[in-house]
């Protein structure tokens, strides 16, 4: 690759400056990668426990709803489900972790109070209430886990691309520029030697 460089002094100076610049950028990117990684590790341990909780809550909710449909009949559960009038909503905002925009999800109306469920206190059974309650809890966990999952995915993508850039600089860009610098230096020295030799021969004549 070193063939298309002009071995001039000004090119050498330029190249030296560029190498310094690139090494600076490389250091910064490396720090960014490590920072992202650190952030990722702390979030990951939270995520793991959140996922476990999610699975646990889901199992419980499933049990409760099965019990409700066994005791009250599937139709009663279905009609209670149709009657519920408040709907959970999520609000997605943006948050910034080291230059990575991640969503921060906030939920409203996640858990529905018993009176507001639209069935009335007398019309519903405790089993259905319990099932609805545990599904409300489950949705809370779902919102939380979804936020973390999205954050982790973004961080992962960013870590991957930063890693690629760091590696490209370390193993491709900087070595190539150093090779070019060495080539120019050698060539300049060679030219100097040629020049002195030429002068000597000139004198001897």
């Amino acid at each position, binding site marked *: 690759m070193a063939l298309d460089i002009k071995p001039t002094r000004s090119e050498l100076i330029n190249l030296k400056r560029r190498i310094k610049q690139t090494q600076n950028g490389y250091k910064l990117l490396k720090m960014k990668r490590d920072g992202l990684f650190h952030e990722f590790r702390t979030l990951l341990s939270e995520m793991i426990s959140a996922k476990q909780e999610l*699975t646990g809550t889901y199992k419980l*909710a499933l049990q409760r709803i099965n019990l409700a449909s066994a005791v009250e009949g599937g139709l009663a559960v279905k009609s209670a489900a149709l009657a519920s009038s408040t709907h959970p909503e*999520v609000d997605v905002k943006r948050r910034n972790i080291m230059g990575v925009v991640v969503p921060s999800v906030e939920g409203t109306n996640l858990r529905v109070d018993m009176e507001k469920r639209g069935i009335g206190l007398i019309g519903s059974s405790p089993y259905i209430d319990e099932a609805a309650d545990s599904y409300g809890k489950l*949705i809370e966990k*779902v919102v939380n886990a*979804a936020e973390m999952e999205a954050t982790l995915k973004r961080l992962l993508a960013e870590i991957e691309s930063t890693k690629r850039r760091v590696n490209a600089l370390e193993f491709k860009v900087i070595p190539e520029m150093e090779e070019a610098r060495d080539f120019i230096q050698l060539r300049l020295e060679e030219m100097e030697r040629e020049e002195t030799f030429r002068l000597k021969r000139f004198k001897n004549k």
Partner: protein
Amino acid sequence: MEIAVVGTSDFTLGFQLAGINRLYNSDDIEESAEHLKDLLNDKSVGIVVVNSELLTKLPERLRLRLSNSITPTVLGIGTEEDNTLRESIRKAIGVDLWK
């Protein structure tokens, strides 16, 4: 934004009880796949909840698209934990950090 639930009617019933009204019931895998594809392009949905059993039966390409999507975020829940995130961590970092 809303929460949407895709799965069999048994799966979605509980979520309906908690007040979610974006339900996509279907027992058929291909039909669910169609629902999921529509949901991916839906701007009014923030979170999609899918049964993880269904998630494992979906075609590979769609599964990849679902796990890479951020809005909406697709979350598989079930009695067994899903490993899509674990896989992507292993791919991006090269080490299995999920411990």
